[in-house]
């Protein structure tokens, strides 16, 4: 048998073929993402779910209606594409004048809804979809065996990709599309109906994802979760390629697939993380991506939300009231619930520090929560550290991870920042899945609570509650002070207008990095304490759905408000606790809340409430000075 660098040739070619197949799907999906982003400035997070919907629809057609593969190849893209048209027309169209992150949040919510609904209906396990009779079997190429279906997938995807490229770059229709991307007003003035064109583009992008889904059905297991993990890898591909060109997306997709295949042949342990490593390297040497980025369009119509600045004294009073309430809460509320909610509240507040005040919305904050949990759990269990030292170790680990990932991630902003953080978190997830000390699928169990400072026994409920309360209040107070500090003001200034801040002599990258690291450390503080309190550390805390949950808590409660994340965390944790019987419906509910938050409730609970309160209290003044109603009043400073 021929060996190549210690690997049997058949194995190597087999893995390369598998890599090409994966690459074909990366290419088709990242192509669709790039087309949609180019046209609408929306990162279509639902792209993975729409791919899954394509595969599921094909499976449904076959199972319930007896409609086979070849018809599905034609019908499914049309059906799913049509759902995309409706989605654009009635939902996404409302978002075009908002920050691009809202599009990503909304489509993330939609992905959750789709995934939850289909899991409810068909279970989460994968269903087999058989290869059509015409493509059964394969041929022996001498150096390897090539199954016919796989050859077909590669050929078909290449055809689809190149056709798309041709239409966009070489036809009149494509010229209109590209022109509308540059200047929609002008193209509209030429008599072309740009809104309809955008709608059709989105529909076509979605149809492309569904087509990929049908092609994938016989290769992978067909199931509701098949799109979620794939889309994260595709985001990494998009960051590597840069979404600057159509051909760039195609080439990068296949390239990444091949790199994965090679890694699987020579060093299989790294195969699931290699994409993210490549992304990190690209961010270091060529931050805009291999083929250049399409810059995010400037937000000319950005709406100024109210500053809602309360005086330091009011804040301190509010803080003390909260402290008293939480200290007394165990008298009426189950302490276990309170502790869980407080730790998630701290996590959400830490996230809000960077997302709300720094406008750097991370989609990967679970990596800090989870890593700190593992480290503190390991420190307490295997090294026998006292709980405060174990928590410290976890926090330090999260801070280090924050420094490293932040150093790379802040090279990009906006939606790219979101995708980069999501991808890094996925890498950490795979590391946690494989690393020896995390316990893999089982996680760390029976972590000892131990004695605080070697003295206070944390296995006593009152002591434990006090410990968690102190950590939450300490962390919250720190965040409150940072937000109100000169540093906090600089951070808010940077998020408003970074270039202007630079022109005032502020090295904005350093400020962002420190804020990001601080946010990571405080997330870690929550995660480390959670591991000691709950005595377990599992993959749940590093999974992307946890990153989604902290987003949900923060946006539901009110991003950029001090107490919003606390309120949001309590609502979400309560929903999980009391609606646990609903199973997957909770995910559907989460997704729905996301969609509603973005569409009608952007200030969140606390933001909307304080606005109402201010409008109500400013009513008499508004009669005399109409402008006064819009601007919050503040005590004159210092005198």
């Amino acid at each position, binding site marked *: 048998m021929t060996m190549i660098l210690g690997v049997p040739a058949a194995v190597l070619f087999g893995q390369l073929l598998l890599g090409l197949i994966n690459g074909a799907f990366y290419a088709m999906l990242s192509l669709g993402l790039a087309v949609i982003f180019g046209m609408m400035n929306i990162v279509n997070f639902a792209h993975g779910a729409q791919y899954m919907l394509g595969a599921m629809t094909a499976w449904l057609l076959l199972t319930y209606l007896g409609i086979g593969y070849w018809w599905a190849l034609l019908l499914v893209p049309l059906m799913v594409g049509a759902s995309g048209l409706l989605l654009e027309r009635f939902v996404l169209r409302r978002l075009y004048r908002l920050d691009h992150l809202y599009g990503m949040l909304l489509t993330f919510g939609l992905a959750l809804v789709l995934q939850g609904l289909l899991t409810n209906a068909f279970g989460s396990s994968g269903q087999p979809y058989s290869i059509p009779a015409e493509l059964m079997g394969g041929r022996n190429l001498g150096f390897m065996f090539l199954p016919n279906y796989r050859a077909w997938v590669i050929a078909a995807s290449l055809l689809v990709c190149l056709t798309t490229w041709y239409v966009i770059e070489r036809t009149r229709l494509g010229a209109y599309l590209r022109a509308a991307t540059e200047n929609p007003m002008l193209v509209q003035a030429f008599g072309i109906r740009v809104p309809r064109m955008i709608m059709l583009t989105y529909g076509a992008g979605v149809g492309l994802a569904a087509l990929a889904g049908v092609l994938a059905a016989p290769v992978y297991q067909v199931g509701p979760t098949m799109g979620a993990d794939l889309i994260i890898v595709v985001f990494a591909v998009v960051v590597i390629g840069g979404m600057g060109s159509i051909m760039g997306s195609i080439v990068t997709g296949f390239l990444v697939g091949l790199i994965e295949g090679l890694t699987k042949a020579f060093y299989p342990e790294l195969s699931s993380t290699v994409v993210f490593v490549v992304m990190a390297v690209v961010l270091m040497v060529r931050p805009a991506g291999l083929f250049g980025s399409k810059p995010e369009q400037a937000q000319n119509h*950005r709406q*100024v*939300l*109210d*500053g809602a*600045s309360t005086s*330091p004294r009011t804040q301190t009073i509010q803080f003390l009231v909260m402290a008293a309430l939480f200290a007394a809460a165990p008298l009426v509320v189950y302490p276990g619930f309170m502790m869980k909610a407080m730790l998630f509240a701290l996590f959400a507040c830490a996230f809000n520090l960077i997302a709300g005040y720094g406008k750097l919305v991370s989609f990967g904050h679970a990596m800090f929560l989870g890593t700190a949990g593992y480290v503190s759990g390991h420190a307490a269990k295997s090294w026998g550290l006292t709980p405060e030292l174990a928590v410290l170790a976890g926090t330090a680990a999260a801070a280090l991870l924050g420094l490293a990932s932040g150093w790379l991630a802040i090279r990009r902003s906006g939606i790219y920042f979101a995708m980069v953080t999501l991808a890094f978190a996925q890498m950490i997830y795979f590391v946690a899945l494989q690393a020896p000390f995390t316990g893999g699928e089982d996680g760390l169990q029976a972590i000892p609570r131990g004695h605080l400072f070697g003295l206070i026994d944390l296995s006593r409920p009152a002591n434990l509650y006090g410990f968690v309360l102190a950590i939450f209040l300490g962390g919250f107070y720190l965040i409150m*002070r*940072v937000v*109100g*500090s*000169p*540093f*906090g*003001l*600089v951070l*808010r*200034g940077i998020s*408003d*207008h970074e*270039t*202007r*801040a*630079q*022109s*005032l*002599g*502020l*090295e*904005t990258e350093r*400020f962002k990095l420190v804020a990001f690291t601080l946010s990571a450390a405080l997330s870690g503080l929550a995660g480390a304490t959670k591991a000691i309190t709950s005595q377990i550390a599992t993959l749940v805390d590093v999974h992307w759905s946890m990153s989604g949950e902290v987003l949900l808590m923060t946006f539901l409660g009110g991003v950029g408000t001090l107490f919003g994340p606390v309120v949001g965390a309590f609502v979400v944790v309560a929903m999980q606790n009391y609606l646990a019987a609903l199973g997957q419906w909770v995910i559907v509910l989460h997704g729905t809340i996301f969609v509603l938050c973005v569409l009608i409730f952007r200030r969140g609970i606390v933001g909307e409430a304080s606005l109402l309160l201010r409008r109500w209290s400013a009513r008499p003044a508004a009669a005399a000075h109409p*402008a006064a109603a*819009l*601007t*919050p*009043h*503040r005590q004159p*400073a*210092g*005198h």
Partner: protein
Amino acid sequence: MDAGHALQAKSLSREFGGFFAVRDVDFTLHRGSIQAVIGPNGAGKSTLFNLLTKHIAPSSGEIFHEGDDVTGLSMPALAKRGVVRSFQISAVFASLTVRQNLELALLRPAGSAWDLLGRVTGKRAIAERADALLERFELGECAESLAGNLSYGRKRVLELATTLALEPRVLLLDEPMAGLGREDIGRVTDLIREVGEGRTILLVEHNMKVVADLADRITVMVRGRILAEGPYDEVSARADVVAAYTGQGHD
């Protein structure tokens, strides 16, 4: 290099995909003067400006500040040396109040920008400086309004005040009159002349009356190169300058 020059560019070029927006430009900003760069649209004025302030990096050439080579410095580093710019599209921190805009500018010179736990309102020196600026620029009555809600003219005034908060020695103003009404133009012209005392100012401006009023020297740019340079009366009378303007539309 001559230390008597506030800013100096030597064979400065910037290329965008084969197109030279600025080509081989030698330019000197004399210390203590008010100078203006004029030229038809697309002449490379804004690019030159962005190069001098390190908003974009040059493709080739060198930039000197008071005799030191600053070609490799970042915009913040240049600002720390006292070279501060304003922007064409008024750049204020929209979600901060007018007072906070000024405080933010004052933090770094006061050494407080990295204070993570203190209170902005507790810094007396900053509050006093902010008050003085609010008064001088007649922004007192909207001190607590969000900058994003100000009228366009007020935003430009606030931006000038924020820039001045840094006590810059060299001030670069990118079309300070763009979008302003006649009344505001008069006010801002007076303000610029007033703050020009003891400072070096470079402005890119389309309004010729403003340029004639303010500038000691003007530089005319056409197609990425410098066409003429000198006192306003002398340069504006030159036939080739007039041709460059009338031949390519008025400004």
